């Protein structure tokens, strides 16, 4: 199985981002999309995640799939603590069977959130508010949130672009470590070839808009 976009067309006003564009992503691996800024990488993620619809074209293998999104900014709710931010996106019955009582459902969500907080090494910060954390820590919360949801695909839109080089490297190591545990399909958009080299099993290099695939390394 693969996630296939077939003959996609998408324009914003006069600007044609995709013209008869086709691409296929293997499942169960981390795929990087490299390309100049503004070439339509984010648009591609938004189309895959259903935040945006293509003008024409077909998406295959997307039915019934759940997605997580690690946005460029962490997008945490400032009035919720780290744990509450993660619990916020968990479905009501995410971590137990359908007959569980509301209390044990809540306990299940809480346990799930704490498990992920531990995995991104934010133990002790579960009750902190986002404004009390550094930029890198906030982005880790957003990564924890994406993994906490039992999704099939994780979409990542340059989540490390605001961080310094050393931090980027450790964040990517963490990310691949957590990823090892359940090997979800990851589509990772970046403009930084070093990030791609560190994380990706497959890489697509995109041209400027209208997008063509310049290179495909698997």
């Amino acid at each position, binding site marked *: 199985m693969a996630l296939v976009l077939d003959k996609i067309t998408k324009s914003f006003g006069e600007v044609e981002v995709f013209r008869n564009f086709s691409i296929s992503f293997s499942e169960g691996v981390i795929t990087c999309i490299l390309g100049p800024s503004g070439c339509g990488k984010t648009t591609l993620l938004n189309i895959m*995640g*259903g*935040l945006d619809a293509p003008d024409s074209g077909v998406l295959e293998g997307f039915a019934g799939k759940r*997605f*997580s*999104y690690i*946005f460029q*900014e962490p*997008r945490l*709710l*400032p*009035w*919720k603590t780290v744990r509450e931010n993660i619990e*916020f*996106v968990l*479905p009501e019955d995410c971590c137990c069977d359908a007959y569980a009582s509301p209390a044990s459902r809540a306990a299940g969500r809480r346990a799930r959130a704490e498990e992920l907080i531990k995995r991104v090494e934010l133990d002790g910060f579960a009750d902190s*508010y986002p*404004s*009390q954390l550094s930029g890198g820590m906030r982005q880790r919360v957003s990564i924890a949130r994406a993994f906490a*949801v039992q999704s099939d695909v994780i979409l990542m839109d340059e989540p490390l672009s605001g961080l310094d080089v050393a931090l980027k490297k450790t964040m990517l190591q963490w990310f691949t470590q957590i990823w090892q545990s359940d090997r979800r399909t990851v589509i990772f958009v970046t403009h930084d070839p070093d990030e791609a080299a560190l994380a990706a099993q497959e890489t697509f290099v995109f041209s400027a808009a209208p997008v063509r695939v310049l290179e495909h390394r698997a």
Partner: protein
Amino acid sequence: MKAKFNGRQKWIAACSVMLMLVVWQLLSLYYKSDFILPGPWQTIVKVGKLICSLDFLAVAGTTILRGLIGFAIAAVLGIGLGIWAGLSDNFRAFLTPWLVVFRSTPVIAIALLALIWFSPDSVPVFIGLLTMFPLVCMNVMDGMKSVDPSLVEMAEFYKVGRRRIIREVYVPAIAPFIYSGISSAIGIGWRAIIVGEVLSQPKYGIGTRMQTAQTFLNVDALIAWTIIAVLLSYGFESLLRVSERRTVRWINF
């Protein structure tokens, strides 16, 4: 949120109150008549007497109760309709003319109409409601415009239900706007309710007592009731600020 005064500024504020009392004293010495302007000391004694009088609780309590009823209805309607208008441009287009009319109608015109339509006890409530509702509602609508759309997009992406998005994304985001709307509504609504009482003359009410005092030229009682009204309003403001600090404490981090 308003910053608290430091020691020096508290001292300046205290001096300012002293100056107010001195000017008052000088004016009362100049006019030399209790029927025009009694002195501050005499008036403060009168305030004490009024507070200790048998029916003080009934008088002040009734006015406060009217305020609370009008305020509760205005807050529920204002917050509810304000959020709805923030979510739907169509509803905003529908609501805006109503708000413009309510906001620009002179309080006295509302009062005169209410006198024809309602019983004396409910006239002040109605006036208070109509002055407070647009203030709360417009602040909430401004707040809704300021909500970060990327947070809403995140919540929708993760398939969080509409109700939870309203309760857990929109409402906390607009909390500071709700508080500033409520704060100006209470200040203006409280005054409107007393104007309503002066005009409609219900059995109990601070406004009723002011009107009576004015009729019999009890200027000290008139000013004393005014001071009581100011103190009560200040009390509500302080309560509101305490509750705001507790609710939106995440801002302070």
